[in-house]
């Protein structure tokens, strides 16, 4: 297996996905509108600033930015036979799924960057450790993009992908410390929150924005572990469903 050939294939698929799906006018406008509306809504509710809420809002933008499009893209390509076209090429299934995850990651990064700019430039939030923030944001988009891929390979229809995505997205918003700190949750919910990757994203982003950057190494390791695990599960499930 030539790594250069695999990388060439991955880049070709990412470029094609961005051109064919992600950076189409309706998706760009949604990508810009979604963080603006979200940030404005919360800034009206908290006129003194969004310092506490900003990490959660950025994580939320990353969660929705990655999963909303990616699950649709994979399911759609499965449905119309375009994913089969990719499988006919001399490229491994792992590379195909990595390229799909990268497509979602880039789109999620764009949306969460817009949210970051809005909250820091206009709504009083601050980034105390830019390098750590960038690493955490990148990992947040990768892990949730991988989650989107896992959802997409589990279902057959586009609408099923959307419904299943919502099953985990909305509970995550309430469980992962975006609005309510984990310490104030009942013990059972706290354990449940610890199973969800968004919890670690919010925690690590908060550390880079309002606290010291030293406490986030474990979060970074957990997010990396989740990314690898979700990619692995996507490949296994895709192969199993195909057989």
């Amino acid at each position, binding site marked *: 297996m030539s790594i250069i050939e695999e990388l060439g*294939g991955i880049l070709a698929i990412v470029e094609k996905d961005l*051109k064919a*799906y992600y950076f189409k006018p309706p998706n760009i406008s949604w990508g810009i509108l979604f963080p603006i509306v979200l940030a404005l809504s919360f800034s009206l509710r908290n006129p003194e600033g969004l310092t506490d809420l900003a990490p959660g809002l950025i994580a939320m933008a990353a969660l929705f930015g990655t999963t909303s499009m990616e699950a649709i893209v994979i399911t759609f390509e499965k449905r119309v*036979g375009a994913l089969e*076209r990719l499988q*006919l*090429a*001399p490229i491994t299934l792992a590379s195909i799924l990595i390229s799909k995850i990268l497509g979602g990651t880039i789109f999620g990064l764009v949306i969460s960057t817009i949210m970051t700019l809005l909250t820091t430039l206009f709504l009083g939030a601050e980034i105390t450790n830019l390098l750590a923030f960038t690493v955490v944001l990148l990992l947040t988009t990768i892990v949730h993009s991988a989650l989107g891929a896992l959802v997409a390979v589990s279902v057959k229809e586009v609408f099923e992908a959307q419904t299943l995505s919502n099953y985990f997205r909305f509970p995550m918003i309430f469980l992962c410390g975006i609005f309510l700190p984990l310490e104030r949750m009942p013990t059972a919910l706290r354990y449940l929150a610890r199973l969800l990757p968004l919890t670690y994203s919010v925690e690590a982003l908060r550390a880079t924005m309002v606290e010291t950057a030293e406490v986030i190494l474990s979060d970074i390791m957990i997010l990396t572990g989740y990314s690898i695990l979700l990619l692995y599960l996507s490949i296994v499930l895709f192969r199993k469903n*195909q*057989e």
Partner: protein
Amino acid sequence: MVAIDVKELSKSWGKTLAVDNISFQVKEGEVFGFLGPNGAGKTTTIKMLVGLTKPTSGSAYVSGYNIVEEPREVKKRIGVVPESSNLYDELSISQNLRFVSKLYHISSIRREQRIQKVLDTFQLNEYSNRRFAKLSKGLKRRTILAAALLHEPQIVFLDEPTSGLDVLSARNLRQVILELTESGVTIFLTTHYIEEAGQLCDRIALLVKGRIVEVDTPEALRDIVQDTPLLKISIANEQRLAPDDLQGIQAENIMLSHGEISILTQDIQGALSRVMEIATEKKITIHDIQTVKPGLEDAFIQLTGLSLESMRMEKEGKR
């Protein structure tokens, strides 16, 4: 030299045996037809040979590479044209071809030359900037074929290549297939158009319920039934005739479709007498009676035990 070598290949999905212990060889430069009704196992066989699904047992080599152990080497050497479109609606013809060329690692220097070559071959130049979604069915088919040939594969798998095309587009596509074989490319073709297989294929394998019932040249397959005359009786009021009414006739095969009774029999006189009796009894008008030499379609019916009509109806989703 052998392009495809299949040995005792089987595939089951749960308890369903889709492909049952098939063995055959395809020679280099040959056009090999794979014929059978829906559900016979044609697509499953192709999916195994092109590396989309793994066989349950048996082995197969494509261009000398094992399909399970070396799928990457197999994929580099094959082109696949599926029955339905597998390109991207949102991209233009050129963008689709450029994307496929990158997937097959065609160097940037060769890329534009190859794209131009397939655009010329398939007369797609004037549409090259048009979005794939906006193309006619014939143009889409040509673009899919162009994309499959971009990396100059040694073997091309064509799944129902002329399905749904108008007469002219189908004829053009058949011409392209013949030109490909002249350049030494091996073609593995599935079709439900028997006469098309007869025109294009050097050899044909007949597949029924996952098993190969015969592999031979179209001429040899025709010869199997050539000694038995075919009686064709054109009738009106077909609805008055029940399939059971014809069962008493001594024949190798009897088929009733579109107002015509086809009887493959050595006893023409006996069959005709019986049909006349039935026609009188059921008040059925006979328009025409002919005795003809059976063709490839009749060989197919006799060898597979299936009627062509049932095969077409399955294909068109009427059942």
